């Protein structure tokens, strides 16, 4: 179907998607996890300088209100958790500005769920169970690989990802045809990790049908908690299927002050890069003050999962109207 009005994907994909969604709902229903809905259009958004958002004005002239399409439903779901909802999940759209490619569409479908009183290990186990269920695979034959970020990184690069030694990062880049990294990343440790991980390590994960990488370096904690026993690492994990990043899970940060400090740090990065500063979400911070229960949470890209389920090469093959036809 070449005409722009027509769906980009095969119509069979619609059925595959519906089937995938009903399986996910069945999985959580069986486990008594409540499905919820939270707003996609909010008065605030995250400060993460790596997540560019869409914003729009709500018209109530002359005091128009700046509104934001959410890059994930995280803040609102945590407000429900703080209010005592118990374990919850949501299937919704998320929006990320400027992200378009084989594995990216600015508007995409996300599955996000939170488990009260789960530690990271329990959430990793549940994520594996969900994926095996949706992919119709057996645990014993699925060849699941679970390894730490450090072990994976050091094994492939011989670099320590938690300790930044610029000179050894540079010599690694020089001897591995990655000289672009030297000028792009400069002294930015986190960007070096992103560069090496996405250019060298992630492509090698394609040998694993299901791979979980956990214990990220603390500088890549995002909204996860720093490990209580080892401050060099964060209680965060990511799931890769055949090398495709599919989900990102955290032991959730519940400390309001720590959360506010991270927002401030991120805004500082925004300021240094000449980006717009973002107002810290007061509802979210107040919810943390009220008390977020001990919980772990994870976001999973549903369009990518559908790609994997249907052996597709690109998101365009699984979305009826990807960005250029939207």
């Amino acid at each position, binding site marked *: 179907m070449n005409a722009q009005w027509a769906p980009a994907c095969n119509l069979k994909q619609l059925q595959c998607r519906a089937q995938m969604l009903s399986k996910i709902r069945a999985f959580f229903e069986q486990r008594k996890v409540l499905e919820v809905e939270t707003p996609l259009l909010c008065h605030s958004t995250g400060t993460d300088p*790596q997540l560019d958002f869409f914003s729009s004005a709500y018209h109530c002239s002359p005091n128009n209100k700046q509104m934001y399409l959410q890059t994930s439903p995280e803040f609102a779901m945590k407000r429900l958790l703080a209010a005592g909802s118990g374990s919850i999940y949501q299937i919704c759209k998320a929006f990320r500005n400027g*992200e378009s*490619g084989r594995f*990216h569409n600015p508007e995409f479908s996300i599955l996000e769920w939170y488990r009260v009183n789960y530690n990271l290990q329990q959430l990793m186990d549940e994520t594996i169970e969900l994926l095996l269920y949706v992919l119709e695979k057996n645990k014993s034959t699925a060849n699941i690989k679970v390894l730490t970020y450090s072990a994976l990184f050091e094994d492939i690069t011989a670099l320590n990802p938690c300790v930044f030694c610029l000179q050894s990062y540079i010599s690694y880049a020089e001897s591995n045809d990655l000289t672009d990294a030297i000028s792009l990343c400069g002294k930015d440790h986190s960007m070096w990790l992103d*560069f090496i991980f996405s250019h060298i390590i992630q492509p090698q994960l394609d040998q694993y049908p299901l791979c979980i990488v956990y214990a990220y370096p603390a500088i890549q904690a*995002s909204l996860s908690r720093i490990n209580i026993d080892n401050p060099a690492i964060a209680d965060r994990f990511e799931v890769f299927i055949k090398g495709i990043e599919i989900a990102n899970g955290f032991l959730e940060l519940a400390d309001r002050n720590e959360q506010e400090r991270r927002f401030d740090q991120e805004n500082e990065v925004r300021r240094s890069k000449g980006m717009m500063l973002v107002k810290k979400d007061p509802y979210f911070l107040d919810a943390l003050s009220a008390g977020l229960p001990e919980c772990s949470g994870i*976001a999973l890209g549903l369009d990518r999962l559908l790609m994997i389920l249907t052996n597709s090469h690109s998101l365009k093959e699984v979305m009826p109207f990807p960005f250029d036809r939207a």
Partner: protein
Amino acid sequence: MAKYSTNEFKAGLKIMLDADPCAIIENEFIKPGKGQAFNRVKIRNLKNGRIIERTFKSGESVEGADVVDVDIQYLYRDGDFWHFMMPDTFEQYQADKNTVADSVKWLKDQAICTMTLWNDLPLSVTPPNFVELSITDTDPGLKGDTSGGGGKPATLETGAVVRVPLFVQIGEMIKVDTRTGEYVSRVKE
């Protein structure tokens, strides 16, 4: 020339890189969910034809290259230069040896070629996919041999050497695929 954001990168886009005009062959947007986004790009340098890989930070912008392909007629060679003319405007361009490069062996007077211009200067010349040229030299083949098996080398009027079937003779016109340099057929005059 306009600037292009990495978000506009796609195959075919012409950009300036290290002061040379280049064409994007492949663009992959890579971004860890919680990290820096990059565009990993495969690029052809239009001056020397070399293909390189480069990574850009997403959101950066780069200078576009004023590169266009035009249909142009080959006129004649004059010492170190090959002269071409736009059929509609009669505007003339001269290309040097580096610019015509390997295409030179297929250039026949009057042929309509594709010329790639960078800032209105010739960057490269591509001959038509098929050209008809006469044979100026080849071993006399055996009469009656129509098998074509093996073949023999034949020199064409432009100096190109192609393998032709044994039955093809000096003075005959043949059709050649310039992309592969292979004989296609004899041309009946």
